[in-house]
């Protein structure tokens, strides 16, 4: 009787203490863990463990977890995205087999999520994996990546994109590879003027900074080359191209620049040609799929379509391409594999630099990216590519290859022009994302 406390205060204290403990645990989880220093003196925080990776080659090594958010099931770029992801798995397996990164191996299989090419789904996947990964080995799509970019910058999450918008040149957290859509379109125009004598251009493009960026490059290039330019936006879906086809038929441009998915591109090229259009088409690399050579649009594609690409295709003879083919073994060739492989090199270079600097935290990895002056692409991109320290304009890769459909080639395309920087792209001062100038 002498303790004189209200009845029930004991359970309340226990409840309060439990809530406090839960809050502390939640806060710690949200913070993503404290900075630690491993035996060799390397600082780590999120997404790096002393325990080996689930599929470790050497179980004495720790693990760096990288996330992948891709278009894996029903989005318009799934035919490209699945090979991209498979190539990245093979790339990091090769890295691990060759000794990993310092005292660590890299895991890209634990955190793979499907974005269905939907920005909201992309963001959900990102939020789910964010407390568990150091960086993103792949974030597929420009509009989808735009949905997480602000958070990535706030949290110093570095990512390798699977997209080429020119906005990435201005983002420290993105380790982009190859020429962006904007410069690629400029190179396409330089090529088309020389090869086909074109004087008028129509850009048919998806909305958002994938299509808009390529269309802006075509506009800037056309202005520079004295060509007439017009643009028409379209939607994803082969049955939604009637407006675009009509715009082509009524405008009768010499050249149509296409930025969309493969089925959409085939519908436009095939149906415009069937209705009497005799101009040329050049599509950015995501517009191509070898299966289009079996489609009703194949004759039109073979006669009128060419494709630009930021790097050489599957069958090219460089050390990087050879390593890619060796790592993947017997598979149906697809340049999605080539892209996934190429996009992985800068992340490898940044991780290697961060370990060498003794700082494998998110901040350390970002600092490593900013200090990279070149990336070894094993010949898949020209020497000097991957200079993130030089800034957007000086660091931009400006070379583009041109391919045409060819039934005999491994990925259905054969090269017309090797990786070349045209005079328009060379002279262009990249002073902001191109799509803002459309």
């Amino acid at each position, binding site marked *: 009787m002498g303790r004189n406390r209200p009845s029930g205060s004991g359970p309340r204290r226990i409840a309060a203490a439990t809530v406090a403990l839960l809050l502390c645990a939640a806060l710690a989880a949200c913070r993503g863990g404290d900075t630690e220093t491993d035996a060799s003196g390397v600082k780590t925080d999120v997404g790096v463990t002393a325990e080996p990776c689930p599929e470790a080659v050497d179980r004495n090594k720790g693990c760096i977890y990288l996330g992948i958010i891709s278009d894996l099931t029903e989005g318009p770029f799934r035919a490209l995205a699945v090979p991209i992801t498979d190539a990245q798995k093979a790339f990091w397996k090769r890295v691990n087999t060759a000794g990993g990164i310092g005292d660590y191996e890299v895991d890209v299989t634990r955190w793979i999520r499907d974005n269905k090419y939907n920005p909201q789904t992309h963001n959900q996947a990102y939020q789910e994996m964010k407390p568990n990964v150091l960086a993103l080995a792949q974030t597929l799509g420009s509009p989808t990546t735009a949905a997480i970019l602000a958070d990535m910058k706030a949290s110093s999450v570095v990512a390798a994109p699977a997209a080429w918008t020119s906005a990435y040149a201005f983002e420290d957290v993105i380790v982009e590879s190859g020429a962006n859509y904007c410069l690629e379109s400029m190179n396409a125009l330089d090529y088309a003027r020389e090869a086909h004598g074109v004087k008028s251009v129509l850009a048919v493009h998806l909305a958002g900074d994938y299509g808009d960026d390529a269309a802006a490059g075509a506009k800037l290039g056309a202005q520079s080359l004295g060509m007439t330019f017009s643009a028409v936006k379209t939607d994803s879906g082969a049955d939604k191209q009637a407006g675009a086809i009509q715009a082509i038929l009524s405008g009768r441009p010499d050249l149509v620049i296409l930025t969309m998915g493969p089925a959409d591109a085939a519908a436009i090229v095939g149906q415009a040609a069937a209705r009497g259009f005799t101009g040329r088409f050049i599509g950015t690399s995501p517009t191509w799929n070898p299966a289009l050579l079996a489609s*009703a649009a194949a004759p039109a594609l073979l006669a009128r379509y060419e494709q630009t690409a930021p790097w050489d295709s599957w069958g090219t003879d460089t050390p990087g391409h050879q390593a890619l083919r060796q790592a993947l073994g017997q598979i149906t060739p697809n340049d999605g594999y080539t892209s996934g492989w190429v996009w992985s090199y800068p992340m490898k270079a940044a991780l290697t630099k961060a370990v060498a600097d003794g700082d494998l935290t998110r901040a350390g990895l970002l600092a490593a990216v900013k200090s990279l002056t070149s990336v070894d692409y094993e010949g898949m991109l020209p020497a000097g590519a991957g200079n993130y320290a030089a800034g957007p304009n000086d660091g931009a890769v400006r070379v583009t290859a041109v391919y045409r459909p060819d039934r005999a080639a491994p990925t259905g395309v054969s090269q017309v022009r090797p990786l070349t920087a045209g005079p328009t792209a060379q002279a262009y001062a990249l002073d902001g994302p191109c799509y803002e100038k459309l």
Partner: protein
Amino acid sequence: MTELAESLLRGLGTGSVYALLALGFVIIYKATRVISFAQPAFMLAGAVLVTYLAGPVGFWVAVPVAAVLTAGLALGVERVAVRPMVGRPAFVVAIITLGVDVAVRVVVNGFIGLDVRHVGDPWGLRTVAVPGTAIDLQQRHLAALLATAVLIAGLFAFFRYTRMGLAMRAAAYDQEAALAQGVSVGAVFALSWGLAGGLAAVAGTFAAAGASVDAALWLIALTALPVIILGGLDSLPGAVVGGLAVGTIQELTASYQQHAPWLGGNVSVISPYVLMLLVLLVRPYGLFGTREVERV
């Protein structure tokens, strides 16, 4: 003038696909008083089946076989998911068909895989000149129009001259009276689903002819909704007329939208739905529908 004529012909070709889809909706509605939202999935399933069958057995065999298999799938769905709900509110059954649509499409998407799949039609994008004119008509549109005409003639003959057709008409008119006269209403339900499934498969095949089959093909089936609103939810001739009208309007909008650039680049896609809204405002039971539908 040539452009107008070509647009009209393209519109009739596209519209005949819509008509086939709308007929499926109407047949099920007339028999069961339920709008089946599973039609898009059957359309996709039929088209995907054709992509698999066209290689081994050829297009001409693949289409009827796929139509029969899709009809079988629809029959199975009716027996397993819909028949147990007889007597429940139509709204509940409609929601179930929505679930069936999603489930079937998820399975079918797995068979589409990563490649661009083709139905292997013999027409591709080839055109044929209309004699005595400068008008070019795509063979796939002509084929769709002819196939629809044949199927519609067959359907109308079936309803008019066969005992089962008579039973279906009787059940559509008054289910209880039909039951009292010995009509198997269950068989009528099953047959209506089977017919709708088969029609959806043929529609999906012609929708993909000259292009490709991907997971987004099912969206075309949604255009059948404006069609049945225009033609009348319970009218078979209305479905045909509505389908051809919507296809023509959509194609004409695509051809001439350049004269109204302020509408945006792809306004033809929404034109059927704009038409649907207008029809709902003026004549909610459609051009050929019965007035009692208005109260539903």
